[in-house]
C-alpha cells in the first residue's frame, strides 16, 4: 500500500480540515473553554457536531452503526485536532474506549456504543497509576465478590475522567503487580459507588482526574472481554491511543510550524524580514525535515496497525517517539523564533507548546517508546 492517502482518505482530510479550522478553532474552543474555567475543558456542542460528521464512530464497525474505518482515518481527524488544538474527547472516547469496547459482548456494546455514536456520552480510560506511563505494572485489584467484582486502587492522569459517563479501567484479577497475565478490563459507570475523582486542570487547559476506587462493586457484565485475559485488549487499546496521539502530535507540530514560518515572513528587524537570516532558515528547514519524517512514520504505523501486521507494535512506538521529538522541536523553535511575543498568552504559539507537553506524556513519552523499540528489537 503506498504511503499516501487514497482518494477517499484525501476527501476525509479535506472535510476534517475545513471543519476543524472553522468549528474547532483555537479562539472558539480552546481559549473559550479555558477562559470560562469550564470543568470539562471541552465543549459538548462540538462533540455533538463530531457525531453529526460521523467522527465519533470512525473506528466503530458498520454493523454497530459506526463508519468502520481504520487508524489512518482516525489519524486524519486527529492531525486536524492537533493543528487547531481542538479540545475534545475524541482520542479517549472514539479511539481508545471504542477499541476496548470492540472486544466487548453484544450487551456491553449495546449499552455504550449508541451514546458514543450520537455524541451524548463521553468515555475515559484509566490505565496509569503514577506520573509516568507504565502499563506493564498494574496494582489496581479486582476481586470476585458475589455475582461480580470489587475494585480497589488508584489511577492517575485520567483525561476528562470527571466528564466521562464511563471509565475503561484496567485492573488485576490475578498474579503480581508486574505480571503480563491476570489483567481484566472493566467498564465502570461514572456513578458507581466507591468511585471518586479529583479533577485537576493541566498545563494545556485539559481536565484530568486522579481516580480512587474504593471497593467499587461491579456486576460480571461490566467485564470487557475475558477475565484475566485483558492484556491483549489493553495492548490494542494502547496501540490505538499511541498512534492516535502521534498523529495529533504531528498536527500540533505542523500547526506550530505554519505559524512560525508565517511569522518569519512578516517580522522585520535590522531592516529585513527575519526569514532572510540564514541562521533561522536552516533551523526552519531542519524542522521541516523532522516533521515530514514524523508524518511518514505515523502513516506507516497506521497502515501496519490497520493491516494487522506483526511489525505494527514496533512501528507504533517508533511513530510515538518520533512524532514527540519532531513536535517538541516545532513548539520550542516556534516560541524562540517568535521572540518576546512568543512568551505572551495573547499569541497562540505558547498554546501549542503546552498541548505538545501534555501529548508527549500521553501513552508514553519518547524515552518510554525508544526503550520499547530497543526491547522489541532484542536489546
Amino acid at each position, binding site marked *: 500500500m*503506498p*504511503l*499516501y492517502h487514497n482518494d477517499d482518505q484525501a476527501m476525509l482530510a479535506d472535510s476534517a480540515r475545513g471543519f476543524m479550522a472553522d468549528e474547532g478553532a483555537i479562539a472558539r474552543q480552546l481559549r473559550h473553554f479555558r477562559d470560562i474555567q469550564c470543568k470539562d475543558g471541552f465543549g459538548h456542542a462540538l462533540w455533538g457536531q463530531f457525531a453529526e460528521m460521523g467522527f465519533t464512530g470512525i473506528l466503530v464497525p458498520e454493523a454497530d452503526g459506526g463508519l468502520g474505518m481504520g487508524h489512518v482515518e482516525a489519524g486524519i481527524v486527529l492531525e486536524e485536532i492537533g493543528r487547531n488544538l481542538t479540545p475534545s474527547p475524541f482520542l479517549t472516547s472514539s479511539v481508545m474506549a471504542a477499541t476496548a469496547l470492540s472486544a466487548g459482548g453484544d450487551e456491553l456494546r449495546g449499552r455504550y456504543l449508541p451514546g458514543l455514536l450520537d455524541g451524548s456520552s463521553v468515555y475515559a480510560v484509566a490505565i496509569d497509576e503514577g506520573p509516568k506511563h507504565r502499563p506493564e505494572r498494574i496494582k489496581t485489584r479486582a476481586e470476585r465478590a458475589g455475582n461480580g467484582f470489587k475494585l480497589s486502587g488508584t489511577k492517575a492522569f485520567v483525561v476528562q475522567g470527571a466528564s466521562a459517563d464511563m471509565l475503561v479501567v484496567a485492573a488485576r484479577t490475578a498474579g503480581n503487580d508486574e505480571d503480563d497475565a491476570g489483567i481484566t478490563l472493566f467498564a465502570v459507570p461514572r456513578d458507581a459507588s466507591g468511585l471518586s475523582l479529583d479533577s485537576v486542570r493541566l498545563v494545556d487547559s485539559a481536565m484530568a482526574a486522579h481516580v480512587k476506587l474504593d471497593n467499587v462493586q461491579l456486576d460480571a457484565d461490566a467485564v470487557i472481554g475475558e477475565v484475566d485475559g485483558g492484556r491483549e485488549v489493553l495492548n490494542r487499546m494502547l496501540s490505538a491511543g499511541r498512534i492516535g496521539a502521534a498523529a495529533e502530535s504531528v498536527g500540533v507540530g505542523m500547526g506550530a510550524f505554519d505559524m512560525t*514560518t508565517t511569522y*518569519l*515572513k512578516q517580522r522585520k528587524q535590522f531592516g*529585513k*524580514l527575519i*526569514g*532572510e537570516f*540564514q541562521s533561522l*532558515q*536552516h533551523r*526552519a*528547514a*531542519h524542522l*521541516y*525535515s523532522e516533521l*515530514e*519524517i*514524523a508524518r*511518514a*512514520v505515523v*502513516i*506507516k*504505523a497506521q497502515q501496519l496497525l490497520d493491516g494487522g501486521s506483526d511489525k505494527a507494535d*514496533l*512501528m507504533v*512506538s*517508533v*511513530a510515538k*517517539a*518520533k512524532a514527540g*521529538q519532531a513536535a517538541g522541536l516545532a513548539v520550542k523553535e516556534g516560541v524562540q523564533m517568535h521572540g518576546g511575543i512568543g512568551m505572551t498568552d495573547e499569541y497562540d504559539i505558547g498554546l501549542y507548546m503546552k498541548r505538545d507537553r501534555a501529548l508527549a506524556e500521553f501513552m508514553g513519552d*519518547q524515552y518510554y*517508546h*525508544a*526503550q520499547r*523499540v*530497543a526491547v522489541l*528489537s*532484542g*536489546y
Partner: protein
Amino acid sequence: MSDPDAFRAELRAWLEANCPPEMQQPVRDEDDVCWGGRNFKFKNPAQKAWLEVCVAKGYTVPDWPVAYGGAGMTPAEAKIWREEMQRIGARPPLSSFGIWMLGPALLKFGTEEQKVHYLGQVARGEIRWCQGYSEPGSGSDLVSLQTFGEDKGDHWVVNGQKIWTSYADKADWIFCLVRTDKANKYQGISFLLFDMASPGVSTKPILLISGNSPFCETFFDNVSVPKDQIVGELNRGWDVAKYLLGHEREMISGAGGGDRMNTIGAILSRNAGVEDPLLRAELAMFDVDALAYGAMGEKFLDEVKVGKGHPAGSNMMKYAGTELNKRRHELVMAAGGTASLEWDSAASNGGGRARGWLRTKANSIEGGTSEVMLNVIAKRILDLPGA
C-alpha cells in the same frame, strides 16, 4: 498490473529459481558491488550469473521501458520487485551511476536514438559511467564552472579540470558539464557525453582520509567531442544537471532502501556487548530515527512515482539521510571501542569500520552539502524571503 498477488508470486518464484545464494548475502565491501563496464572483473561466477539472468529479463532497471533494456514495470510493480528483493536480501544485480543518475536524465532529455543506444548499454552493464560536475573552483557554487568546450563546427574541443569525479579511473564514459558560452552563467553550460578513452583525458586518484581513493581529479586537454553527444539543447545543460542532481541526491539519501535505514542497536549490542546504558539509549534513539527515516524513504518513492510530493523533496531526503548515516557510523565506532581503531589488521577487515566511518563524512558534502540542502529547502519548499 492485473493481480498484485499473482505478480508477487511470479517474481518470488523467479527469484527463487534464479538468484544465487551467494547473491543473497549482505554486501560486505566495495568488492561485492557489481559495477559493470568494459573492464569490470567479476568477483565470482555467481555475481556474473546474477547479472546475466537479470539483464535478460530487464531486471537491472525494472521500471525502464522494455525498448531501453528495462522490464517496463509500473510503479506498483516496481515496488513489489523491491520488496521481494529485500525479502530475500538479494543484492542489486548491477549498481551504476548510469542507472541512478544518467538514466533518469536521458529518459527525460535524451533523443530516441540516445535512449536506445546509451540506456541499453547501461541496462546491460556494458558501459560504466562517471560524473564530471565539480571543479577545483566550483564546489557548492557549481554554476561557476570553467571547463570550456570550443565550437569547432562538427565537434567541440574541451579543456579544463574536474574534481571529485567518483571512479573516473574505472569508468568508460563521462557525463560532463561543459561551458559552451562564457557570457551566460546559467544558460551557458551544456551537458556532454564522451568516452574516457578519448585522447586528452587523464585521471589522477585522490587519496582520502579513509586511505582509499574513490574520487579522482580528471583533466581534459583538447578532448574532441562530436556534436551528437550532447543531451538536451546547447547551453541548456544546467536544466539537465539540476534534474540529475535531484536523482543523485535521492541516491545518496539511500531512499531506495539498503543499509541507510537499517537499525543498529540489536547487532551492535550482540557483537560488541554494549554495557553502557547511555550508549544503549543513544542506539535506541538512533533506531527510532532510522526506522522513521525508512518510512520516509518509502513514502518519498511512492510519491515520486505518481508525481505527488514536492519537486525539491530529494534535497530533504539527502539532508536527513546523510546526517543519519554519519550518526550511524559514529555509533558503530563508539560501540566497537578500541577494536574500531584498527587500520589494516585482518581482524578488522582492513580497518573496515574506521575507513567506513571516515568515508561517511563525505556524505553530507558530496552531491550538495547539508548547508546547501537546507538553503534549497528554505527557498523552494518553505518559500522563505531572500533565500
